[in-house]
């Protein structure tokens, strides 16, 4: 799927964010204009501290833009909304609730039966069956991350906003989690905005990669990743796209 053909789900129009702290104002985002298509998997890539998390928080409604506006499905974003769930690193799960309790957290408006069905379905989807009664401290990092994704999906949001969700995981678990996320994305058809500083991760996952500049962040380039899933990460096209982003960001390939 390419952005030009599909309907725009998210419209970010001339958004700028400035923080005023201790009498000093920091310009974090500069004139960001971007459209995200319904069902698209978009990666926002940039160096640490460039403001890509700020952008995601603004889309989520946790922050309001200093200038410009964001509309989702035609509505201006004014605050957080269960239709778009923000997934933090695994620290976002509630440590006082079991796996079940965490997944049920956003389901308080549903009937008991429906809640039970959703818990069962999403526990299975993320491969946590048998751990329903376990507390987060009894789970590994990867399991906690999957729990957070399950909790987010259980409220059936249109969108997932993921902020470097696999950053704290070891490299093997991270690869597994990427495959899991793609599997879930393909079966649930959500629009995903995924923030990362990992070039490989962006090229493995995304339909399009938005490359951000250093602060104040603007969009440096948007790269279409025109490779079907599952992606062969040793194919010439993969390497070509990856290397072009390396160059774009200005990092040499040799260490």
């Amino acid at each position, binding site marked *: 799927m390419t952005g030009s053909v599909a309907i725009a789900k998210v419209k970010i129009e001339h958004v700028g964010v400035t923080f005023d702290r201790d009498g000093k104002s920091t310009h974090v985002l500069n004139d960001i204009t971007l459209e995200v298509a319904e069902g698209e998997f978009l990666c926002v890539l940039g160096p640490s501290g460039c403001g890509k998390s700020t952008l995601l928080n603004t889309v989520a409604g946790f922050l309001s833009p200093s200038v410009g506006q964001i509309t989702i499905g035609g509505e201006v974003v004014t*605050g957080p909304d269960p239709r778009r769930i*923000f997934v*933090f690193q695994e620290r976002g799960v509630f*440590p006082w609730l079991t796996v079940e309790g965490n997944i049920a957290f956003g389901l308080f408006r549903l009937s008991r039966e429906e809640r039970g069905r959703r818990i069962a379905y999403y526990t299975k989807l993320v491969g946590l069956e048998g751990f329903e009664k376990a507390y987060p*401290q009894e789970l590994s990092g990867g399991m906690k991350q999957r729990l957070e994704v399950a909790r987010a999906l259980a409220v059936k949001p249109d969108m997932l906003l993921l902020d470097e969700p696999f950053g704290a995981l070891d490299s093997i678990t991270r690869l597994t989690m990427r495959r899991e996320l793609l599997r879930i994305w393909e079966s649930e058809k959500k629009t995903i905005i995924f923030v990362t500083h990992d070039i490989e991760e962006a090229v493995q996952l995304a339909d399009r990669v938005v490359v951000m500049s250093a602060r104040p962040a603007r969009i440096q380039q948007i790269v279409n990743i025109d490779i079907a899933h599952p992606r062969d990460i040793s194919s010439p096209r993969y390497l070509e796209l990856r290397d072009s982003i390396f160059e774009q960001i200005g990092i040499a390939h040799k260490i």
Partner: protein
Amino acid sequence: MTGQSQPAKWEMFFWPALVAAIGLVIWNFAVHVTKSTVFPAPSAVMKGMQELGAKGILLRDILDSLRRVAIGYGLAVLIGVPAGLALGWYPVAANVVNPVIQMVRPISPLAWIPLAIVWYGVGDASATFLIFVGAFFPIIVASMNGARNVPSILRRAGKNFGLADAGILSKVVFPAALPSIITGLRISLGIAWLVVVAAEMVAVDSGLGYLIIDSRNSGKRYDLVVAAMVLIGLIGLVLDLGFRRLEKLKSVRWGFSE
């Protein structure tokens, strides 16, 4: 019994029991060697306890002390926990109230005795008030800090799932602050148990504190004084063990380092 190794089950009981037995032997020996006329031997304390128990005084005194603690401490919990959570929730209010709390907190609850007696007279109300004052501050401070230190990620997650302020307070802030609150409750129960003894020495004529002062005043019965002291220690230990069990509950255990 080397270093960090897990002790065997029998060791968990054997060593403490052995040390207790040795302690009693040394106590007994010291009393006989020094020929103390004030400090009683363990056997005399035991006899004293039996004497009190037989007269039915002991049980009444214990229940009176526990009742005063239950009321004074209970009030402190009922007011202190919600007030602390509210202050943690509204940083502006905390800014106003916190300096006052921090100033009143280091004043020993016993310094309130003269005022308590003027306000509430000699009787249960004074004792209860003193216990309340002793327990209230650790509870409100622990609840406030607990609420204030809830990671913003968790509050944001609550908001994201569509909770209003009341829901975030009850479903996110309260459970997140609970380990801190429980620690505050445990510390303040210890303080309440300290204060009740002192309060009963001046403000009322029953309870374990009164038993101590009365045993001395009416006939210098130091065996009964020490018997009451031992009981106070044992009951305090049981109360603390109860709270330790609470900390083991899975929904709060995450907040305590293993």
